[in-house]
């Protein structure tokens, strides 16, 4: 575009601003005319719009070319399109009316077969994405992200565009619904795509931690494969938004990752650039290690490293070292490691770089405790006098807070605060002296001392107004406590204080007037001088002062025996205990940032307090179904008689279509809708009393189970087979336990992310039963085979798996049976049963089910041969052993059966009763003889 080059050269050639403006005005006039005349070809439009952009970049206001830019976007030529998009992203802001006009062109480009057109469109949305665009186009962007045919560079951009749209208009993006699909992209072989998606997930997971919880496992897995530094940092950050995982496998893997990163930094680095990247990863790793456990050996290693960094020659490293150490100080219980470097840190307050000084200040604030508070506060006070103006206000607040928090003696507190007031008066907010007054008023021992000290400060020729205020207040209230000591007589107090009055602003003078009226009450000897002051103030111009003076004058002039004055000047009662206004102030100063990692980095004020982290997905009892499942047992029994599947919670019986909000609740927890179907229930029921078998099967995969249990622990091997001739990618397995405190289940290792065609993998689940539980854990297997799919099924891990049979003689049995007695420690139900082909009770099956549930079948106890009696003990790790007795009485004529469970724990009784009944009960709807079990 020669015209453009010439234009730029002309402008550069302009010697003075006027000439430049002249040239630009001429050009704009020309362009305006050309545009008005119309009939321009694409090249000319492009040229003129480019000139308009250049003019805009120079800082001139432009009012032409918007429409032409919109036209250029729909051009079929890339060169014109590109300039059009550039103009849109530069000239228009997100509320511009012109954006309405481009939505359709952008959609067209999003759906274009040419990827570079997709990219231009994505870029435009990311830059100016308006509400309207978000609503109209987020689906298309999402499609580009997940489509298997998208090029990597398109998907990368789509991920970030989606993120940008989400940030601006979160309500438009169905974040929970898309969760699993988006997370599955973390397994993508292209690191650029993974990086972009990790950014997206980082944002989404902060708002929907449970829906994205599987990302935790993915991140750990990915980190294990040593990705590029940028991705490492992203993943390490992602892990910090979740509370530390209880999964021992993940814990171990994570430890290894962090250890490796920390070891790596001991190697000499190749160059500065590499060094930067390495340090960036290291600092993030340290942050994560601190997040996981502030007192672990890893953190000790980190402390040693940090100590080296804060005395590094490189300023950047010193800066980040101090920053990270402040984080460490805020989170660890053991400050010793940091305290050994106190000297270095204090020296950093005198670093030549203000950025470093700020960090040192933050760190000193974080690491302060009872032992070193006097030293640190002393240092800070000394530094305050030479500190940069920008730093002072914050320093004053911090010093005031530390002084109050760690004051070992009142004397020290008063001394320090008053020194602070006199040293940095201008930077002291009102809150600081309010707080002093509050504390002195509430602490009787302090009052006389405070009065004396403040008096001494006031004697110095120049004292700051804040100090005068404190002085006025304290001497007014407590001046009489020291009035009898030499040098503190009422008249001296008055002279010292009043000498300051003339330099003060009206509000301070008003406060002093109040002080004087208090003195009229306690120091009658100086009443004439005080009344004199009131009299003079009765004629000042300031209305407030005048009114006050008049009132006080009238009060002071009342006769001696009048008690009015005394009542008015009654000593102030202590303030109700309240939170320090200072901390509020500091918090307000650094209002919460978007960064939701538990320690807000940007805060600059790392409070030493337990951090608020997102609650664990596994332990949350979501409002929805908690009451339903833990609710009253009778209701459950009633519904069990109705033939409902109860062992799998109400979640399992929701039909997918009828309860959309139910699936939303599941999605919120990161669990896809449970797979349903008669076969699935049948397989599950059978596995309740058998150790191995099929759990799930469809045309693509098969899931089988083998299990063995010993006491309260068990090992369940899950076999997943790929039945297709194509590999399953982004293969992920996850477990969800809804009663985390009662049952833990975790994989020994993370599954590989790809399952080759016609192969099978084995994943071992480690199970421990701590207490009685009702809900079997959910296994989620997800993969991409064409589209992303997820299968969620309950694992047949139920309380009877931890039941071990015991042999009892008839006497023992009956003694225990009677000892336990009836309800609530007895659970009983009557349910229909199916007869076998010959019309008899299927005794073999009855025995199989009872024995399969772990009961020892006791012979010769019940006289009726078709009745079964059994006994067993449930092993739990926390609640210990629970005895459990069973009696099963099938009745051929009525086609009914009665099961009675007595247990020392009522929870066990009801739960076992349901479990035993479940495989035996006939499906009332199915013809009896067709049932195959």
């Amino acid at each position: 575009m020669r015209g453009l080059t010439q234009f730029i050269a002309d402008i550069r050639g302009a010697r003075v601003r006027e000439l430049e403006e002249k040239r630009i005005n001429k050009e704009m006039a020309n362009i305006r005319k050309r545009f008005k005349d119309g009939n321009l070809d694409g090249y000319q439009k492009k040229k003129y719009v480019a000139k308009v952009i250049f003019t805009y970049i120079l800082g001139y206001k432009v009012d032409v070319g918007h429409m032409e830019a919109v036209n250029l976007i729909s051009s079929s030529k890339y060169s014109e399109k590109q300039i059009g998009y550039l103009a849109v992203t530069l000239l228009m802001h997100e509320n511009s009316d012109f954006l309405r006009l481009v939505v359709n062109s952008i959609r067209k480009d999003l759906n274009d077969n040419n990827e570079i057109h997709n990219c231009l469109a994505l870029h435009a949305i990311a830059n100016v994405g308006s509400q309207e665009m978000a609503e109209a186009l987020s689906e298309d962007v999402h499609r580009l992200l997940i489509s298997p045919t998208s090029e990597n560079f398109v998907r990368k951009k789509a991920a970030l565009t989606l993120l940008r749209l989400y940030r601006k208009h979160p309500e438009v993006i169905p974040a929970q619904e898309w969760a699993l699909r988006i997370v599955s992209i973390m397994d993508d072989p292209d690191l650029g795509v993974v990086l972009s998606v990790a950014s997206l997930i980082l944002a989404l997971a902060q708002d929907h931690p449970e829906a994205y919880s599987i990302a935790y496992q993915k991140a750990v897995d990915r980190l294990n494969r040593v990705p590029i530094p940028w991705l490492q940092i992203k993943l390490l950050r992602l892990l910090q938004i979740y509370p530390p995982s209880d999964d021992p496998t993940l814990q171990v893997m994570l430890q290894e990752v962090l250890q490796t990163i920390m070891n790596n930094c001991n190697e000499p680095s190749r160059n500065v650039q590499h060094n930067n990247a390495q340090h960036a990863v290291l600092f993030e790793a340290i942050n994560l290690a601190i997040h996981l456990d502030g007192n672990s050996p890893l953190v000790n290693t980190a402390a040693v490293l940090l100590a080296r960094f804060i005395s590094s020659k490189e300023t950047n490293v010193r800066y980040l070292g101090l920053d990270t150490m402040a984080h460490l100080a805020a989170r660890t219980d053991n400050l010793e490691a940091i305290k050994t470097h106190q000297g270095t840190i204090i020296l950093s307050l005198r670093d030549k770089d203000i950025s470093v000084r700020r960090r040192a200040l933050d760190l000193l604030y974080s690491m302060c405790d009872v032992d070193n508070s006097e030293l640190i506060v002393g240092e800070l006070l000394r530094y305050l006098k030479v500190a940069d103006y920008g730093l002072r206000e914050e320093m004053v607040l911090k010093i005031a807070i530390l002084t109050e928090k760690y004051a070992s003696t009142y004397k020290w507190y008063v001394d320090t605060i008053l020194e602070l007031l006199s040293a940095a008066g201008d930077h002291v907010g009102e809150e600081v002296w309010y707080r002093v007054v509050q504390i002195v008023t509430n602490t009787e021992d302090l009052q006389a001392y405070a009065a004396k000290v403040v008096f001494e400060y006031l004697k110095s020729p120049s004292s700051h107004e804040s100090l005068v205020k404190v002085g006025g207040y304290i001497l007014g209230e407590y001046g009489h406590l020291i009035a009898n000591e030499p040098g503190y007589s009422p008249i001296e107090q008055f002279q010292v204080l009043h000498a300051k009055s003339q330099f003060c602003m009206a509000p301070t003078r008003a406060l002093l007037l109040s002080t004087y009226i208090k003195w009229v009450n306690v120091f009658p000897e100086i009443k004439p001088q005080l009344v004199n002051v009131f009299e003079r103030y009765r004629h000042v111009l300031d209305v407030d002062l005048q009114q006050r003076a008049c009132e006080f004058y009238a009060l002071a002039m009342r006769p001696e025996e009048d008690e009015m004055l005394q009542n008015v000047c009654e000593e102030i009662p202590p303030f109700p205990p309240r939170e320090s206004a200072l901390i509020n102030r500091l918090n307000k100063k650094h209002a919460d940032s978007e960064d939701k990692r538990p320690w807000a980095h940007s805060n600059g004020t790392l409070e030493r307090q337990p951090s608020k982290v997102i609650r664990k997905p596994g332990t949350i009892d979501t409002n929805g179904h908690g009451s339903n499942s833990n609710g009253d047992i009778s209701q459950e029994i009633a519904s069990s008689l109705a033939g409902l599947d109860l062992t799998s919670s109400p979640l399992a019986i929701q039909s997918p279509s009828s309860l959309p909000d139910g699936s939303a609740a599941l999605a919120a927890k990161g669990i896809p809708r449970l797979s349903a179907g008669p076969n699935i229930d049948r397989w599950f029921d059978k596995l309740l009393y058998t150790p191995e078998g099929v759990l799930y099967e469809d045309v693509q995969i098969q899931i089988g189970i083998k299990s063995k249990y010993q006491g309260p622990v068990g090992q369940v091997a899950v076999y997943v087979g790929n039945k297709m001739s194509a590999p399953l990618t982004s293969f992920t397995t996850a477990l969800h336990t809804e009663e985390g405190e009662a049952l833990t289940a975790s994989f020994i290792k993370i599954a590989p992310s790809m399952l080759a065609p016609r192969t099978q993998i084995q994943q071992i689940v480690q199970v421990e039963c701590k207490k009685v539980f009702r809900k079997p854990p959910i296994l989620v297997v997800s993969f991409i085979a064409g589209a992303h799919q997820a299968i969620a099924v309950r694992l047949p891990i139920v309380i009877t798996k931890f039941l071990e049979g015991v042999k009892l003689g008839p006497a023992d049995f009956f003694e225990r049976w009677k000892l336990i007695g009836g309800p609530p420690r007895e659970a009983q139900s009557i349910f229909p049963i199916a007869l076998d082909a010959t019309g008899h009770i299927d005794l073999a099956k009855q025995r199989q089910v009872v024995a399969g549930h772990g009961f020892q079948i006791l012979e010769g106890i019940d006289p009726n041969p078709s009745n079964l009696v059994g006994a067993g003990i449930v092993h739990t790790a926390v609640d210990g052993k629970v005895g459990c007795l069973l009696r099963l009485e099938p009745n051929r004529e009525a086609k009914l059966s009665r099961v009675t469970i007595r247990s020392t724990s009522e929870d066990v009784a009801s739960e076992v009763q349901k479990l035993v009944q479940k495989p035996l009960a006939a499906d009332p709807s199915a013809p009896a003889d067709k049932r195959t079990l």
Partner: protein
Amino acid sequence: MRFISLMLPLTSPFFYDAVNTSGVPRLTKFYSPIAHSAQTLVEKIFSLVSSRQPGLCNFLDAPELETFLKPKDGDGEKLRVVYRNYATLYFVFVVDHAESELGILDLIQVFVESLDSAFENVCELDLVFHFDEAHHILAEVIQGGLVLETNVNEIDRAVQEAARARKESYASANPLSLGGGGAVGSRSAGLQSPLGWLAGRLTGVGAR
């Protein structure tokens, strides 16, 4: 990263000289709305950055800038300035805390390397005469304030791809034209600057 609020390579006409000369921005891009005029903001940032001695760290807390960049919803996000000086240019990013500081520093280097490879020894004039191209390259590194790509080769490939597409579309529209429509590598001889890019090789370019 969330909202690299802006990035502006600034130039001081004389290397660490004449503090009173305000920097002329060569490339600015705002990823979030700004409250005041861009001009004053740029001046403010320039004065912050140019007053710092060499050898100090590349990071700067910038409470002064908050009035300019206050997001409308008023969350008190703390901003940090990350800058780096290359010859006559300062590359300045004003960022929130979504990326680590060292990461941003690395990103600046990535951007500069990409510019350098696209323009074959980039100099300040390239940013002036091929501002569109510079923006396109930036778009391959940062999209909507978020880090898009950190691999120089990938960025390079994307830039070349776009240049090729531009050339093709240009050639198809103007079959008789000899020159390509693309900017890359087509600097006119009169504007050719012999000056190299990286520190030490460049002595300074006229103010405008």
